[in-house]
């Protein structure tokens, strides 16, 4: 009995509950559906604000297979909306585009989803990019712009074009050219209309050439040959298969010049590689002479262009040998020709490699060129690895056996990037090597491959191989003993400490200094002579990190025993003077704590100051760290009273009191400011900061610690340039004026030192090198003022 009661109550309750839910559900569903639908059509209503009809999804009724369209909705008779998906710089752009059914123009473009680079490709989501699509005719889709993101724009254009084609076929009844008709049209364009094409590929051996089909063109008589050619563009590896670009090229059978070229398939990046489809580019090939292929231009995608030209040259060679029957120079013949060109015409070449030890060098073969009577020149075959680390570059270079200068240079094989490193195999590159002095080749004073910054890696490796070949030539043929690094180091050390017999490394016994690699104590037997510091300090150039590496000798009596340069990465030639012995002697005997300035050395002022600054740091390190004594302060640097007056207008006379206070690196001098009656009314600091360049200033402060004026004595900051330069972003917006008249300096006038120390004056974007370094120095001075309680302050 109890069971029935249980079952009954539960069932009753559940039933009542379910019914309640059922009715409520019936009541609320329409509201919920209406809300959801409104959400879905938000984008469409944005394009057609005044359309209140419904949207009918007709995707199933159309073949959307090979088009970017994923959804198609009809808005009554007014418009049709395509939801398309395509890739820009990154895959996964979803866009809703509307076509008006009356005018068949595009009436709206809304980005639903994208993940292009922020700030670049993502601009397509912005209002003003999208407004250019309101009522845009499908023909001028290619003229849309508004973004520098060429790749994204290219993606948008290709997608819109294919949608426009689809639209025109489905709604305007246009008949599109089928792929087969297109190929025939292209072929006829570069031969003759209604010409017949007979496939004669089987008659030729096309292996090893980029040609995939050879056709005889006939318009009554055979008048031309048409080649179908494949070449690797910028990218050949796609998700599942490799795809090559393809083009047709035709040759006239009488003149054997090119009649024309048409690109059939290309898969390179939209906006770059696909420029070869441009009719203007293709027109250059009309009636082009065989050897004029090199000066075809007009495509910025150098890899694609290089690939096309390379394949075209192979086709020409094939055409010459197979059709014209002229002999095409084979590779061995070319090598022989090159060897003659760089020595003596039809010299007798005999391989002499056996009697040389080639293990340590990049030279792979040594050949002597004999003009019949005596050996005139030596030809080295050299291999080095350039930018393409999976392959080598092989070249031959010849030396005259009397003058030992270079006679000539030819590249035998290279596989560097087309348009960049590959330009090493270029006739105008060879010319510079005719009678080039040996020293230029050794020091690498040659023009770089493909322009100054065209192919840095290949150029750098090439120069290293030249240095190697020249030293090999010097040791084997000029009997010069080339100093090894160990020999050079012991020679330099003995120049620093001639009587030293033993050098013990002591770097680990002292706390490290950033620039000191190692340092040694020099002993003559048991007597200590002094220290040698192996220093690697920051160089002078500010565009990128460069270094100066040298040995510094400091004798027991704290005098320099010389500065021996070891290596540097300064711009070529800037540091050469410092390797000379007479530069090192400038330091000989100078007391390391006195103030000394080595005057300019042959036009390398920046490197000179950098080197001196490095030597000063090592001297300080030697005295403070090694000897544990306070470093003597350099002498005060004076400046004209006029500069001081500009910093402290109310003062009359100034006198330097810096020597009464501690030395602070950034402060050249400290003056007392006196009024007419000679009583002290404040102080003026004369100091410097390393902004973009050296900045020197005077800064007045009264007894209460409130600053007067700050006057820039010397500067060469370039804030105007900062407004337009592009290598560091963000640029300076110019709102704070230009240095030194900038309003930013007012932050330091009329304020107390203590307030300066508590608040952080913020930098100015784009010129922060100046503002940051100057503010830090001014804060050091404010701190110095209270630490040293200058005039009882702090």
């Amino acid at each position: 009995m109890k069971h029935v009661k249980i079952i009954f109550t539960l069932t009753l309750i559940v039933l009542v509950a379910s019914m309640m839910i059922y009715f409520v559900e019936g009541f609320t569903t329409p509201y919920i559906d209406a809300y959801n639908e409104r959400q879905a059509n938000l984008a469409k209503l944005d394009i057609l604000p005044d359309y209140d009809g419904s949207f009918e999804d007709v995707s199933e009724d159309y073949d959307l297979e090979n088009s970017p369209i994923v959804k198609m909705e009809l808005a009554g008779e007014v418009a049709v909306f395509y939801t398309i998906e395509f890739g820009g710089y990154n895959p996964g752009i979803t866009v809703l585009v509307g076509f008006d059914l009356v005018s068949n123009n595009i009436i709206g473009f809304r980005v639903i989803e994208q993940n292009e680079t922020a700030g670049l490709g993502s601009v397509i989501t912005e209002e003003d990019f999208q407004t250019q699509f309101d009522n845009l005719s499908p023909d001028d889709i290619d003229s849309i712009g508004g973004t520098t993101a060429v790749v994204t724009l290219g993606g948008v254009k290709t997608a819109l074009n294919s949608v426009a084609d689809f639209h025109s076929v489905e709604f305007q009844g246009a008949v599109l050219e089928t792929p087969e008709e297109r190929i025939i049209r292209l072929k006829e364009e570069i031969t003759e209309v209604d010409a017949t094409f007979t496939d004669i590929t089987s008659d030729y051996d096309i292996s090893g050439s980029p040609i995939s089909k050879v056709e005889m063109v006939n318009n009554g008589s055979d008048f031309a040959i048409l080649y179908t050619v494949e070449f690797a563009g910028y990218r050949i590896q796609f998700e599942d298969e490799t795809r090559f670009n393809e083009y047709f090229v035709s040759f006239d059978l009488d003149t054997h010049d090119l009649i024309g070229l048409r690109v059939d398939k290309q898969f390179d990046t939209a906006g770059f590689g696909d420029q070869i489809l441009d009719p203007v580019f293709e027109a250059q090939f009309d009636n082009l002479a065989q050897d004029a292929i090199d000066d075809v231009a007009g495509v910025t995608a150098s890899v694609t262009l290089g690939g096309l030209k390379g394949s075209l040259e192979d086709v020409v060679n094939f055409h010459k040998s197979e059709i014209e029957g002229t002999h095409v120079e084979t590779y061995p013949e070319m090598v022989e020709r090159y060897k003659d060109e760089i020595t003596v015409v039809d010299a007798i070449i005999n391989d002499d490699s056996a009697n040389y030890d080639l293990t340590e060098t990049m030279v792979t073969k040594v050949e002597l060129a004999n003009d019949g009577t005596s050996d005139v020149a030596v030809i080295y075959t050299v291999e080095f690895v350039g930018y393409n680390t999976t392959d080598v570059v092989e070249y031959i270079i010849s030396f005259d056996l009397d003058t030992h200068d270079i006679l000539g240079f030819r590249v035998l094989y290279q596989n560097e990037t087309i348009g960049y490193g590959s330009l090493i195999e270029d006739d105008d590159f060879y010319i510079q090597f005719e009678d080039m002095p040996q020293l230029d080749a050794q020091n690498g004073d040659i023009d770089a491959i493909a322009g100054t910054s065209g192919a840095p890696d290949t150029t750098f490796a090439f120069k290293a191989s030249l240095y190697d070949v020249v030293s090999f030539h010097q040791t084997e043929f000029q009997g010069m003993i080339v100093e090894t690094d160990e020999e050079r180091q012991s020679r330099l050390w003995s120049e620093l400490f001639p009587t030293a017999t033993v050098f013990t490394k002591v770097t680990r016994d002292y706390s490290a200094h950033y620039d000191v690699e190692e340092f040694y104590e020099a002993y003559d037997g048991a007597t200590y002579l002094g220290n040698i510091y192996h220093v690697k300090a920051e160089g002078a150039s500010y565009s990128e990190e460069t270094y100066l590496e040298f040995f510094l000798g400091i004798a027991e009596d704290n005098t320099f025993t010389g500065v021996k340069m070891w290596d540097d990465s300064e711009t070529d030639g800037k540091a050469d003077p410092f390797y000379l012995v007479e530069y090192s002697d400038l330091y000989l005997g100078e007391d390391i704590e006195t103030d000394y300035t080595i005057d300019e050395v042959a036009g390398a002022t920046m490197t000179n100051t950098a080197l001196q600054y490095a030597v000063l740091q090592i001297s300080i390190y030697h005295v403070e760290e090694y000897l544990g004594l306070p470093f003597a302060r350099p002498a005060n640097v004076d400046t004209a009273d006029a500069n001081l007056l500009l910093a402290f207008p109310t003062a009359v006379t100034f006198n330097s009191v810096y020597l009464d206070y501690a030395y602070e690196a950034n402060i050249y001098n400290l003056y007392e400011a006196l009024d007419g009656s000679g009583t002290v009314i404040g102080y003026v600091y004369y100091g410097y900061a390393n902004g973009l360049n050296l900045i020197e200033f005077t800064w007045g402060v009264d007894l209460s610690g409130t600053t007067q004026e700050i006057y820039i004595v010397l500067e060469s900051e370039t804030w105007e340039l900062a407004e337009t330069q592009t290598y560091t972003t963000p640029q300076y917006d110019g709102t704070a004026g230009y240095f030194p008249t900038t309003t930013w300096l007012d932050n330091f006038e009329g304020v107390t030192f203590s307030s300066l120390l508590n608040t952080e004056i913020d930098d100015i974007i784009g010129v922060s090198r100046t503002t940051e370094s100057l503010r830090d120095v001014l804060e050091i001075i404010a701190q110095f003022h209270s630490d040293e309680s200058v005039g009882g302050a702090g």
Partner: protein
Amino acid sequence: MVVVIILSVVVSVALAALLSFASVALYVEEDPRLQDVVDLLPNQNCGLCGNPGCKAMAQAILDEDAKLSQCKPGTLEMREDIRDFLLDHPDESGEFVKVKM
């Protein structure tokens, strides 16, 4: 509409039948006072007393290893009720439960 009715009836009948028969078939005798103590407890099964649920707490009280104050949601009146109940209800062997407040 009809589907809703069928479904709810079928489900509830099935479950109710299962539960009721189970309560008979799987009957386990337990301390008769347990259910009364459970009824006195707040029955929120919040577990804050450290025991997994009010039934476990009731059992713990009967086994004298839980203090009534462990039951956080429980009020003073509830604790007094339980103590009074246990004071007049010995178990079969006449033993009284020492209730810890």
